[in-house]
């Protein structure tokens, strides 16, 4: 989490000050959304995860230790809320990835290059969606958020060894799916 909020604000929120909690929501929402999206790969699921994360955080504030880092604590809730969101959704419907909703970054000049970039993104998106919830969460936390293996284990309530295995499986699946992508545009 990039947002930094004074410990004093966290302390006031723990004491039941709703305005202080509002400050935390406003400071961390964008970061929470980004992490939620990277795990769920779906904007609506990520939006739902953001709300659930802050509601859970509010309910669990009593269990937050003042010496801990609030952002790291929020990571844990976000990752687990995102995983729960995926599992709930999997039980009710087949997942589909609304690729059109993803805002593309700069893709360089030329139509062919744009099409190539889009194809690569679709393959990567498809590869990520093929990962299990745990593999995806562990991979995202290591690859994008750069948490240590121990931090990921603590976040997902699994051992460091299980964390490594989840990341290994994720990387293996990604390599199998993405290995054949040509590295340059036609």
């Amino acid at each position, binding site marked *: 989490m990039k947002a930094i909020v004074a410990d004093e604000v966290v302390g006031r929120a723990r004491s039941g000050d709703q305005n202080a909690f509002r400050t935390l929501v406003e400071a961390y929402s*964008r970061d929470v959304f980004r992490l939620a999206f990277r795990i769920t790969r779906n904007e609506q699921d990520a939006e739902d995860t953001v709300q659930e994360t802050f509601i859970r955080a509010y309910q669990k504030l009593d269990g937050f230790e003042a010496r801990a880092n609030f952002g790291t604590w929020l990571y844990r809730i976000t990752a687990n809320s995102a995983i729960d969101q995926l599992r709930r959704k999997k039980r009710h419907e087949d997942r589909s990835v609304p690729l059109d909703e993803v805002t593309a970054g700069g893709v360089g000049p030329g139509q062919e290059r744009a099409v190539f970039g889009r194809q690569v993104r679709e393959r990567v998106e498809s590869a990520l969606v093929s990962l299990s919830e745990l593999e995806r969460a562990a991979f995202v936390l290591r690859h994008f958020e750069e948490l240590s293996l121990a931090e990921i284990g603590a976040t997902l309530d699994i051992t460091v060894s299980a964390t490594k295995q989840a990341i290994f499986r994720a990387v293996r699946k990604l390599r199998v799916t993405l290995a054949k992508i040509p590295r340059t545009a036609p």
Partner: protein
Amino acid sequence: MKHLDEEELVLYHYGDAEDATSVEEHLKTCARCRAELAELTAVLADVSALPAPDRGDEYGEEVWAAIAHKLTPRRRVRSVFMLAAAAVLLAGTFLVGRLSTRWNAPPPSAQIRERILLVALDEHLDRSQMLLLELVNAPESTFELSAARELLHESRLYRQTAFRMGDLATTDVLDEIERLLLDVVHGTTSGDVLTARIVEQDVFFKIRILQTNVRRREEELKSQQF
């Protein structure tokens, strides 16, 4: 020559190799492993390039507007240790037996202590219900272990106190909650089986009935104090 396996390459890529120096030494002399690492790095670079949508500066306010009405004022926190101390303190004046018609008005200080414990028990039932609801909604979930452990510890305290005071009805409900939490913590029973048990045993209904009694008693004590 023994080549690096994929797991060693992944650990090295992320800076997690236990002996990075020996990996680097090997890479200097092994073209095949260098090629493997380059391919792995390229794949992960493709993943890094995937855009994630960004929300604007106003997003935090939108989130707050969406959740503010769902937040109920929190009660001041009690740690497990404080709850344990409260349970010991109240061992002689515990509430649950007093939920029955056998109630005789206790002295004011006992009433205050009883109210504190009633509020704590009510909150404990709330949190237990919430965790079990999460379990029913997502039976595969195994990520609330620390919360389940804490609830299990609390539930045991309340059950033991209720039992000592001879309130078997309350003891039974807390016993059911405790057994479920125990299975959640130990992971010995699948989420689907636990869900079926929760439904078959009407656990949510029993919790609500107990909470109704607890709150009624709390209101009685409140009205007696003012």
